């Protein structure tokens, strides 16, 4: 069932067991799992069926530190959430991403990749993915990895009919849960705002916040402040360890045989470090994306190479005569070291139309990440040269320690951390089952529970974790 307003929903006299906040990939997946298990669930979606400037305005906020996107641009507030502008790249975090790294504090998850693997078949069906091929080692240092360009499922569109037909799932649009009320053991209700005004308090046995990698922290910080710590009793890490995937053009490559690397329809290929290389160089994970260079760029690249290695440039020139596809731009996206100082705070001065403080995001890239960028490109370049697969030129601003450019991709619009998973209540917010520490009936879904980010886009892992949480909740409720 889909209701366009809270008023319409109230007339249906639906009795949910679980209340999910947010209808993005995590919220929709958990709702479908619970609905299939015969558990009545309501999904409160703050936005409507379509994009609107009025709804997006609730997402405005401020960033302190490094340059970042406007917070009302980098996510979407309507049915289906940020899947509505997702590019569709898919890959699950690597096994090594779940392991602690001695050289990077506060890394490591309380679960392993094996814990989410049983759900990958389901994830492939949801995201319409073919099977992934295994990684291909290019050298002892570099793996050729696969990111699948999926059809970019818009969860609101894809599942609208199914959700509308469901007797166990009620999607309630235009209904904003401004605050959870808790007594330090349980959430007792959610305050709602609908139709431009307070709409009372909503009750359910279980609550799952799936409002996104920024908004989950905002909701819980505000709720906790209002309930005097009654919603997140162990709040030392709440809002902290926030992460993105910084993304910049890092250089260019000349390739001996471009087609040697199987590329997808968008002619892109991806490369990541082995764990051994990360350990040796003490760097984070990264992904180097090859994007075919336009012809004028290739000519400039050859001219530049001619100044340093004339014979090599001559060879390159002959390659260019034989095939146009022989050079690539290198885009690097990397894993951020989890830092408590990268955090979401509530603004002290600015509130949205419902009176909820807006986000103040504190975000800075660390020296370890800068080293990851440089050493990552060196690793890749060395591998290509050693194997005679090609040659790499690293951009000057990276080699010379210049500032990050402000006119490039900057980051992936991937919002991770803030309510991270863990066993230490001082450094995490939820346990291995995504339940808020100390709370009997409050769970968190989505990438805000990520402990580390790996190098790949988060949606596949978000969906797998949501399948796992949906199944877990189903078991808890059925007992």
């Amino acid at each position, binding site marked *: 069932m889909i209701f366009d307003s809270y008023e319409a929903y109230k007339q249906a006299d639906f009795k949910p067991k679980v209340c999910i906040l947010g209808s993005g990939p995590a919220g929709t997946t958990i709702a479908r799992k619970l609905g299939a298990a015969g558990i009545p669930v309501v999904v409160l979606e703050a936005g409507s069926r379509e994009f609107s400037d009025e709804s997006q305005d609730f997402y405005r906020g401020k960033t302190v530190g490094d340059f970042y996107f406007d917070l009302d641009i980098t996510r979407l507030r309507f049915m289906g959430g940020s899947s509505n502008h997702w590019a569709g790249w898919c890959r699950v975090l690597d096994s090594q991403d779940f392991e602690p790294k001695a050289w990077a504090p506060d890394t490591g998850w309380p679960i392993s990749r094996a814990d989410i693997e049983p759900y990958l078949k389901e994830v492939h069906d949801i995201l319409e993915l073919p099977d992934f091929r295994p990684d291909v080692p290019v050298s002892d240092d570099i793996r050729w990895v696969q990111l699948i360009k999926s059809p970019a499922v818009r969860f609101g569109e894809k599942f609208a009919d199914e959700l509308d037909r469901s007797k166990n799932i009620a999607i309630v649009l235009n209904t904003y849960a401004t605050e959870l009320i808790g007594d330090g053991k349980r959430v007792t209700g959610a305050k709602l705002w609908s139709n431009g005004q307070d709409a009372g308090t909503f009750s359910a046995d279980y609550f799952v916040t799936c409002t996104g990698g920024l908004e989950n922290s905002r909701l819980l910080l505000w709720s906790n402040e209002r309930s005097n710590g009654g919603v997140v009793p162990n709040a030392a890490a709440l809002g902290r360890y926030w992460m993105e995937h910084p993304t910049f053009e890092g*250089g260019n490559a000349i390739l001996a045989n471009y087609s040697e690397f199987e590329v997808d329809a968008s002619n892109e290929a991806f490369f990541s470090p082995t764990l051994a290389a990360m350990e040796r160089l003490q760097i984070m994970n990264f992904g180097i994306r090859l994007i075919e260079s336009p012809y004028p760029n290739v000519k400039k690249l050859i001219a*530049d*190479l001619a*100044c*340093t*290695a004339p*014979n*090599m440039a001559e060879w390159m020139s002959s390659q260019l005569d034989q095939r146009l596809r022989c050079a690539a731009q290198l885009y690097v996206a990397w894993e951020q070291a989890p830092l408590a100082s990268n955090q979401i705070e509530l603004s002290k001065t600015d509130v949205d139309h419902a009176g909820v403080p807006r986000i103040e995001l504190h975000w800075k890239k660390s020296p370890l990440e800068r080293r990851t960028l440089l050493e990552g490109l*060196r690793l890749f*370049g*060395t591998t*290509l*040269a*050693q194997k005679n697969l090609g*040659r*790499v*030129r*690293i*951009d*000057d601003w990276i*080699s010379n320690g210049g500032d990050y450019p402000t006119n490039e991709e900057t980051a992936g619009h991937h919002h991770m951390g803030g309510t991270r998973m863990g066993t230490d209540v001082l450094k995490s917010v939820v346990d291995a089952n995504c339940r808020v520490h100390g709370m009997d009936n409050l769970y968190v879904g989505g990438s805000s529970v990520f402990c580390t980010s790996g190098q790949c886009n988060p949606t596949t892992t978000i969906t797998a974790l949501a399948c796992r949480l949906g199944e877990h909740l189903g078991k808890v409720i059925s007992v």
Partner: protein
Amino acid sequence: MSRFIKKMSRRAIVQALIALPALSLFRNQPAPANPDEIDRDEIVEINGWILRRSDLA
């Protein structure tokens, strides 16, 4: 030894010190490389390019 130094003028001592680095004994230079010993596969980074040494020929 000290008598010998005392007899030298200050100017002569300074000139000797200046000349010392010019002696091959004090120069930190390897013997001229044998072309056969150059590792042509060595990876070098020049002007941002990551190349094999043989690329520079």
